[in-house]
């Protein structure tokens, strides 16, 4: 893997489950230290795209390059050391938060290594502290709140020491306090460690506020409608065409980023 190549690059990527691809001809690059948000209506293939990017689904056509290397030539473990994904629904296993987070070290285990090392445990402790959930370490995963579960899942992804973090609707089902907590943490990680992030967000205003770049998918056609800065993508014309709903677009008084309101 080359250090200078883009963290992730897709080349005319087609992806989906059955015969007909859900997404067609996707081309984009994610550079180091970039936050990209994928937006689009329900069923436009946002989750499918994330799954394909981390190797869970095989591309139907086209190619994905991770640090310049074709994804099909990489082992699952080496993908996992570069790209970590937090999925939308987390199946809560009956284990403690620290045991759950420790699973993120599995890609670093040697072939016949069955027990975690001191360094692995320290990494887990450090990451829990970084996200401010070290007090939950010995709590059971199914006994903590939704926001805390999301933070634990992010912690699990971070101990994989990835260059790229994929998040699938990290703020769904959370109140605004936890939405802000999670997204501010992600922004901080991005600034502190220049971690690249690709996240699927439903809330266009959050996407506009937190992402450097947006990729807008248009529902049925399964193609990229427009991508670029929030100012370029969140426009009245774009959103109304893709979402087929009248909206008002204005600017956030403090950040200057565009935001939208439903219009009727």
């Amino acid at each position, binding site marked *: 893997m080359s250090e200078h190549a883009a963290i992730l690059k897709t080349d005319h990527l087609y992806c989906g*489950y059955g015969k007909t691809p859900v997404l067609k001809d996707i081309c984009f690059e994610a550079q180091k230290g970039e936050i990209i948000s994928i937006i689009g209506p329900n069923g436009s293939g946002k989750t499918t795209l994330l*799954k394909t990017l*981390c*190797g*869970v689904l095989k591309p139907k056509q086209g190619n994905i390059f991770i640090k310049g290397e074709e994804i099909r030539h990489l*082992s*699952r*473990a*080496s*993908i*996992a*050391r570069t790209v*970590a*994904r937090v*999925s939308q629904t987390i*199946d809560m*296993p*009956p*284990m*403690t938060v*620290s*045991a*759950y987070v*420790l*699973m*993120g070290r*599995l*890609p670093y*285990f040697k072939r*016949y290594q*069955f*027990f975690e090392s001191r360094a692995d*445990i320290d990494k*887990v402790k450090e990451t829990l502290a970084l996200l401010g959930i070290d007090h939950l*370490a*010995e709590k059971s995963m199914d006994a903590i709140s939704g926001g805390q579960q999301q933070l634990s899942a992010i912690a699990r992804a971070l101990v*994989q020491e990835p260059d790229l973090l994929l998040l699938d609707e990290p703020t769904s089902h959370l109140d605004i306090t936890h939405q802000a907590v999670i997204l501010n943490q992600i922004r901080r990680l991005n600034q502190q460690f220049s971690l690249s992030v690709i996240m699927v967000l439903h809330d266009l205003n959050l996407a506009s506020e937190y992402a450097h770049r947006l990729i807008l998918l248009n529902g049925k056609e399964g193609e990229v409608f427009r991508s670029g800065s929030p100012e370029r993508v969140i426009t009245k014309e774009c959103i109304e065409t893709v979402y087929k709903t009248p909206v008002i677009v204005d600017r956030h008084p403090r950040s200057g980023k565009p935001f939208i309101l439903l219009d009727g």
Partner: protein
Amino acid sequence: MGRSRFIAWAWVLVFLLVLLFLVCALALCTGSAGIAMKDIPGIIFHGRGTTDYNILFKIRMPRIMLGIATGGALSLAGAILQGLFRNPLVEPYTLGISGGASLGVCLNILFKWHLIIGIIAYPLSGFFGALAVITMVYLISIKTGMVKTDTMLLTGVMISFVCSSLVMLLMAVSKSDELQTIVFWIMGSLDETNLTLIKICCAGSIGGLVVSLFFCLDLNALALGEEEAMNLGINIERSKKVLFVTASILTGLSVSVGGIIMFAGLIVPHFMRMTVGSDHRILLLGSFLAGSSFLTLCDVIARTIISPLELPVGVITGIIGGVVFIYVLTRKRAIL
């Protein structure tokens, strides 16, 4: 986390080994020959050649070995399958693996293959029956692309029904002496005198344990879901294949020797999970040891409860297992 947990695991293993040793000692002492417990050490060390020595080493010892091997194998297969399916109610029977194995053994009894290729025909036919079922289930479910566990479970239940119907068909067309052999074998008994068969069974279950231990971390990751496990760098397709074959070898072996012994594969891993947690690094080994003790103990009960007659051990495991299972379910809701 860390050191204290490993120490706790070590204590669990020590406890289970001591338990197994005690149960074995108990099994060695009980029987219709009426050898007093205090005489046993003397017989073991100085009684070579006497009748009592022969009873201990030619009759009781092989039976204990078989109890350890089949009990361990069934519980281990249950633990592996429960991990793979993330479902605490899965065991070799729910997947149709033991249905396939019993169909294989019934065919063997009916066509008398063991007269042609020797005693190894029993475990072989059991293993091939189990493997045929698991291959079929696997092939049916990968038609959709990826191995989906819920499809597999449904297919397994259906195949299990088909197999038991076929066994009934075989029983209906068989002669009365064959019928008796099949019925007695189906009820499950550890009364096996063939030493080769016992050795095969022991070697197979130890082998299965060793192989499955290499995949304990994969099973841990699979607890988070298949896609999550992939994200953690686990080659889940390969792990699943190896584990399914291992589980069918374990099941095929124990079914071919001991017949259908219900609940060992369900209840033992379940109890282990409640006591030591769901980490497969301890769960697999723990289930194996606890299963060995459980079946050996059940066999002791089966041998003594209506002595001098013997009950099939499957009856005992079925009753104890079922009652305890229901009791536990009603007392403690969230288990997995």
